[in-house]
């Protein structure tokens, strides 16, 4: 077996196991940690596929940003070791059924379809190319999505601040103003 395959099997096993553990674990913090492992394994997959930049982005953003955010919010809003998290068995069964049927359906579709590979030469992906195409206005430039994403990030920042702000003190400020 080629090393590629071994690596793939390893990563794939990790992903599958940890993702199932994430969604079935009883304690939240453990679920968050399992999610972290899933994300790290995914980035390992990306490394394997020779997309280093994306793997790095994945590690930075997902594993380093989102999971940290999640853990902070867990600490803010619930008791870490106390959460029992068991829903009624009816919900479990129906959702499992739905998920299972969906999975089987998709797998059958995938296996049925014949994917035809292309004969063109592979493009070497390096930072220079990524940087250039991210900002180029050519036919295959990505400057428009780039700008849109920056606006979206700005909007998300503002939204998060506004939504999470405490609302009560504003009223006391107003009443102070009136007294003066």
């Amino acid at each position, binding site marked *: 077996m080629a090393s590629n395959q071994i690596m793939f099997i390893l990563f794939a096993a990790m992903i599958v196991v940890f993702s199932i553990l*994430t969604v079935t674990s009883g304690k*939240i913090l453990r679920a968050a940690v399992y999610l972290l492992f899933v994300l790290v394994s995914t980035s390992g997959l990306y490394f394997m596929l020779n997309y280093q930049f994306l793997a790095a982005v994945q590690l930075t*953003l997902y594993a380093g*940003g989102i999971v940290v955010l*999640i853990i902070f919010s867990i600490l803010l809003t619930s008791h870490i070791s106390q959460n029992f998290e068991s829903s009624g068995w009816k919900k479990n069964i129906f959702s499992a059924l739905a998920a299972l049927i969906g999975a089987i359906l998709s797998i059958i579709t995938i296996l049925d379809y014949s994917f035809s590979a*292309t004969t063109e030469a592979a*493009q070497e992906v390096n930072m220079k190319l990524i940087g250039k195409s991210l900002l180029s206005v050519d036919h*295959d430039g990505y400057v428009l999505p780039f700008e849109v994403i920056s606006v979206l990030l700005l909007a*998300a920042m503002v939204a998060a601040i506004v*939504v999470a702000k405490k609302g009560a003190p504003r009223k006391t400020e107003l009443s102070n103003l009136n007294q003066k």
Partner: protein
Amino acid sequence: MQYFLILATVMFFAGVYGFLTRRNLITILMSVELILNSVNINFMAFNRYLYPHKLEGMFFSIFVIAVAASEAAVAIAIIINIYRRFTTINVEDVDEMKF
């Protein structure tokens, strides 16, 4: 290549199962992250095996990651607000928008 796709499918439906089953809002958010991640794997697999001369898959994945990050941030803000109001983040207790 199909193995990548099958792997992504398993991860996707694990995320779907978690979304439908879990009671804590944050675990639901984590399931959503799983789903988005599986989509990313799909794109990268297609990019590598079917369209190696193009970069669209990768860039799409980058943007998906960016969107996921911003969405997670806003979602956490909302969850914190809900916690302030209801003192619980049990999704079954947050059902005020009913008949």
